[in-house]
């Protein structure tokens, strides 16, 4: 899901930078409020968790691979804004140091795996925790990565429509929505979403006691 440089047209990444700058600014403000002596180890630790879990590539049938992202855990333990900033930091380190994901595409990747994933996780949990807490945790993880793959599929899939030469040859990402949506969204529904869901349940159950679990997703957004 890490879009590399060269896949997105400037018509996509310039507005994405413009939209993400105020989001980063607001998120950073929220993060500064959350960060103190007490939360420092846990926040650093869970951000490291997100970084490491993205390194655990899972092969799937069809010859591709993918990974979980860890955003839902950060979002539920802290809050979605903090998760957004933390995961964006992970994506920036990956882009600059390891060539994993591009720098022009960084805002899109951050909006997908950071912003969208954290808010979907947060509200999924909020909605479903009244019914069953474990189910809610699993679904928060599952839905967060599926929503983020859907967003990436849309952004990639519109490239051939918005950027092509006069003969219709695509200038950037060449496959349209009919290909990107099934390829990305189905693989996340079937495999990586399940992995994300399981990791979310395991990590949060391991980290929190039942009483604390009741307070999840009640942090202010």
């Amino acid at each position, binding site marked *: 899901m890490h*879009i590399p440089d*060269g896949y997105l047209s400037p018509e996509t990444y310039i507005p994405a930078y413009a939209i993400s700058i105020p989001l980063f600014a607001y998120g950073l403000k929220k993060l500064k409020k959350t960060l103190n002596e007490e939360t420092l180890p846990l926040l*650093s630790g869970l951000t490291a968790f997100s970084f*490491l879990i993205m390194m655990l590539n899972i092969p799937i049938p069809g010859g591709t691979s993918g990974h979980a992202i860890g955003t839902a855990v950060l979002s539920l333990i802290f809050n979605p804004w903090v998760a957004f900033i933390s995961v964006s930091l992970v994506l920036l380190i990956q882009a600059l140091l390891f060539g994993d994901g591009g720098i022009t595409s960084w805002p899109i990747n951050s909006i997908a795996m950071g912003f969208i994933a954290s808010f979907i996780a947060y509200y999924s949990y909020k909605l479903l925790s009244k019914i069953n807490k474990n189910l809610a945790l699993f679904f928060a993880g599952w839905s967060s990565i599926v929503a983020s793959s859907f967003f990436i599929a849309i952004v990639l899939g519109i490239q051939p429509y918005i950027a092509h030469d006069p003969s219709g040859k695509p200038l950037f*990402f*060449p496959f349209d929505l009919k290909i990107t949506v099934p390829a990305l969204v189905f693989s996340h529904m079937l495999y990586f979403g399940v992995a994300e869901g399981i990791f979310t349940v395991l990590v949060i159950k391991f*980290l929190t006691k039942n009483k604390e679990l009741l307070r999840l997703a009640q942090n202010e957004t």
Partner: protein
Amino acid sequence: MKLKVFVIILVLFILLPLGIMTDYSAWGEWETEFFQKVLGFVPEGIKNAIHIEAPFPDYTLKGFNPIVSYYISGLIGVVLIFGFFYLLKLWISNER
């Protein structure tokens, strides 16, 4: 909770080599040759993409075997993350 998060990191860290067991690349994260093979051409924007010279491309370090490279890459990332939050915290406490 603090101790437990370090347990999680440690377990994941030990398991890191599992992440390079597969040769399959992620969907939509292909080398340029892929487009040449599938489409018969490489789209202009992809051919002329901004190229950031990453010091450790694909989590590899020159001269190290893949597993050691992957461990070192993981360590570098984790250290940078802890460093970032530590510095941010220092900056906040100075502000207050």
